[in-house]
């Protein structure tokens, strides 16, 4: 059973200090020590009419998920798991996941001083190891009603399942010092407010520009795209103005907007 609890002071104070940069974010925040999935909780709130910017955050998730049912290991105290309710205008939807990657990268850097790399569209890496991930889920009846934008950041080293242990890292493992989680939450939400605001105001080009700088380590590398039918190999060249990944192949250039992309 998921029971929400009072917001711990470290979060409340950091959010209050960042209040003028948060826009609509975290005006409503629901906090859990342990929850099944922050995305599921946020979706339930959105179904009930929760306003844009409503935040669900937790120290642990018993059923943390990635895309297509993959597990996102969320052991107690090891990470920060956050989901937000968005009600984007149709124009802002396609770039949302690109903006989310930028926001998490900016939030991590602002709060912890660690420079991270983005892989299309929004996986957050330090070198070859994954530090944070985004799960964006929308609900549509004819048109999109709401989007739940969730992100999980590994804060402390944890006993990850063996199959991911070699591919995961955490802020404290990288920095060798404790990280202020309240500041991390506040800075990620402030960055999200800024980049989501860019999209809403028609400044997708700004978001693309920042994304390119932060994805410099992954652009130019070989990728395999799981195209319907046979996979296609190529070089990840760039993103276009809509956020689509441009892959150069022997047969020409293709524009990837969906499906699995694996970095080789």
């Amino acid at each position, binding site marked *: 059973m998921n029971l929400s609890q009072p917001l711990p002071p470290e979060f409340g104070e950091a959010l209050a200090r960042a209040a003028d940069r948060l826009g609509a974010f975290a005006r409503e925040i629901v906090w859990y020590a342990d929850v099944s999935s922050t995305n599921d909780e946020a979706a339930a709130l959105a179904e009930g009419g929760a306003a844009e910017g409503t935040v669900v955050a937790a120290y642990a998730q018993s059923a943390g998920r990635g895309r297509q049912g*993959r597990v996102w290991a969320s052991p107690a105290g090891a990470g920060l798991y956050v989901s937000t309710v968005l009600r984007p205008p149709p124009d802002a939807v396609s770039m949302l996941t690109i903006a989310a990657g930028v926001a998490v990268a900016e939030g991590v850097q602002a709060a912890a001083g660690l420079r991270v790399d983005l892989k299309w*569209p929004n996986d957050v890496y330090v070198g070859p190891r994954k530090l944070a991930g985004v799960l964006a889920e929308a*609900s*549509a*009846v004819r048109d999109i009603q709401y989007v739940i934008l969730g992100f999980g950041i590994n804060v402390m080293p944890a006993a990850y399942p063996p199959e991911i242990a070699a591919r995961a890292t955490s802020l404290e493992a990288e920095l060798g010092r404790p990280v202020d989680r309240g500041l991390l939450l506040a800075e990620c939400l402030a960055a999200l407010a800024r980049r989501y605001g860019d999209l809403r105001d028609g400044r997708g080009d700004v978001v693309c520009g920042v994304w390119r700088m932060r994805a410099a380590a992954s652009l130019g590398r070989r990728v395999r795209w799981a195209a319907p039918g046979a996979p296609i190999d190529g070089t990840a060249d760039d993103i276009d103005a809509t956020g689509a990944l441009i892959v150069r192949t022997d047969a020409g250039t293709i524009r990837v*907007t*969906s499906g699995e992309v694996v970095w080789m």
Partner: protein
Amino acid sequence: MDFDEITRILEMMREHELSEFELERDNVKLRLRKQGSGHGTVAPAYPPPAHLPVPAPASAGTAAAPAAAAGPPGEDTELAIVKSPIVGTFYRASEPAAKPFAEVGDVVKKGQVLCIIEAMKLMNEINAEIDGEVVTVYVENGHAVQFGERLFAIRPA
């Protein structure tokens, strides 16, 4: 604005399956709206041409498919066609090994998840607009879908 121009706009609306079109200029305000676009049951205004392959391949093996594809037009209007709101990849289940959200013959409720369409790693859950029975699934799992492409046919309960 002349009659030819309006005809061209109507053709464009048909081609792109637009339900509404608005144009305002030189003190002329034109608003075109396809009948039936305001509620859940959208029937194609014309039957699909016989020489084009129907998006539901025979391998989908649905007994009900002929009713939607080749049946008399009167029967067609009974079905609610769920179309893709975006360009993306069509997934019938929450994860590769899971049971599909909706199979042919399933009775679904309004608001129930029918499928996921993924675009830019945004997982879009497409929900049923009405209660009814799934009679056709037009797209195979993992395939790309276009804006406005037919996904499901549902016979309203």
